[in-house]
């Protein structure tokens, strides 16, 4: 778990303000952006959320909004056929520069506005695979494509059209659904303005996801006081089992 220092938030906020001020005049090619809510708060009742953002972009441009998590290394089991018959894990592939989350939505299909480089194609192209670690028969498997499918399955990668309204004068408002499967950390919202297949303006705002309340306390216990957490977890389980047993005894007694 990474915790961002409060100072970083303040710096980030100041930066946003500067950006906002600097790009208030959308006609000079910049993009102004405001995101609500600024932080994703993960409490006991968190089931995913919707980020709303609005701003101004150059007149007549299409808008692409992107929500990404930090990139990192990922080790995955690769399935293959053993002895030409049985499907099973045949080896481990080590990948670098894999974004934890990658959600993209656009006001018009990415292919129509020349923005495919901003979508999941960018992930497929950007992921680096470690050489030599792959098992036999690995050459036929398109690992980045399979990675994208795996993550799409989990709802962590998504590419779609819609949720964005753009007015004639270049003002836009958008919403993006954030999945329930989120880990705490810092994420980035990027907005790109495209015109004639060119990116004519872009801006980005950091969004923090943090645990609060009971989840935050439990995560702290689990990661920082593992032994105590494990012992308490078993004790509570035993007591709960006994309690249920006793309740049933009194109910079943004649």
């Amino acid at each position, binding site marked *: 778990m990474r915790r961002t220092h409060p100072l970083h938030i303040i710096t980030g906020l100041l930066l946003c303000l500067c950006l906002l001020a600097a790009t208030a005049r959308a006609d000079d090619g910049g993009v102004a952006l405001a995101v609500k809510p600024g932080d994703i708060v993960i409490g006991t009742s968190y089931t995913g959320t919707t980020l709303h953002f609005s701003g101004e972009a150059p007149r007549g441009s299409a808008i692409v909004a992107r929500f990404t998590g930090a990139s990192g290394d990922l080790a995955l089991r690769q399935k293959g056929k053993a002895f030409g018959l049985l*499907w099973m894990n045949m080896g481990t592939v080590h990948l670098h520069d894999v974004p934890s989350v990658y959600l993209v939505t656009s006001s018009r299909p990415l292919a129509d506005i020349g923005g495919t480089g901003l979508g999941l194609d960018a992930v497929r192209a950007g992921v680096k695979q470690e050489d030599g670690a792959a098992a036999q028969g690995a050459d036929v498997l398109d690992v980045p494509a399979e990675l994208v499918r795996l993550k799409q399955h989990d709802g962590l990668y998504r590419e779609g059209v819609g949720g964005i309204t753009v007015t004639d004068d270049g003002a836009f408002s958008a919403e993006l659904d954030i999945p329930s499967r989120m880990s705490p950390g810092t994420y980035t919202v990027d907005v790109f303005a495209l015109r004639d297949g060119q990116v004519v303006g872009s801006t980005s705002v950091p969004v923090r996801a943090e645990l609060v309340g009971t989840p935050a306390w439990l995560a702290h216990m689990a990661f920082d006081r*593992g032994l105590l957490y494990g012992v308490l977890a078993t004790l509570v389980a*035993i007591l709960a089992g006994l309690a*249920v*047993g006793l309740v049933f005894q009194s109910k079943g007694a004649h």
Partner: protein
Amino acid sequence: MNIPLHMYLPIAGNSVNIAAILGLGGAVGLLSGIFGVGGGFLMTPLLIMLGIPPTVAAASDSNQIVGASTSGTLAHFRLGNVDFKMGLLLLVGGVAGGSVGVRIIKLLRAMGNADFLINVTYVLMLGLVGGYMFFESLQALRAPRAGAASKPAPTGESLYERCIRSMPWQTDFPRSGVRLSLLMPLGLGALVGVLAAIMGVGGGFIMVPVMVYLLRMPMHVVVGTSLFQILFTCVNVTVMQSVENHTVDFILALLLLIGSSVGAQVGTRIGKKLQGDQLKILLATLVLAVMGKMLFDLLARPDVLLAYAGGH
């Protein structure tokens, strides 16, 4: 009052439907109370389907089994179905076997192709155990019920019995009504421990047939004693996982165990109404169904050819 339908699990990093988790716990607890198995072979894949990472699913499940088996052991203890002496000896053997099994699996992983061996062992074990139990109990159910005391005498039994009798340190196990060498439960416990560690499961479905056929214990005592033993195994696994991997999600386990400890009580009551042979044939069917599912997974092409590391 506003009852939330979903709850966020901090370690699993996802939110789940509370009713689904309670129901899942109840169903698996029911099986555990009836058959004396932990039910990890059903629970873990279902949790993964609900969006829980594999490692968290397996670890939280063992935390949950602690609660369910406490509840189940208590219920069976009241019915006089727990042979503590036998259970403890099996446990000692199981712990020793478990640590040997962990070494073996490390060795196999280093040699490569470990997954192939694990999968094939798993399917073969399930098929053999399930198939044998199924046909044996089917025969017993079909046989004319001349008297409860009439015992089938399969060929080869005399040799097996002579072997058992010739072993040193013979002791009485009054609860199970058998007389065996101390080495039998210790050795068989170790064997199951090795297999369970290699296959990454609790081993309830191997332990139950071993107790029935090799230790000759009555089915109802087998179920109670198995639960007693699983309790200790899972306490150990939960604490180890919490310390080493931080993969136990307590909220998930708590939700599951509320369902499963109730399920285990109901299961015990259902089990009491069934005959030993009926219990055996039902468990055999369950084991064969799991084998069928595993075999299908091995033969059918998976949707996605990559998987997150961890889990079984």
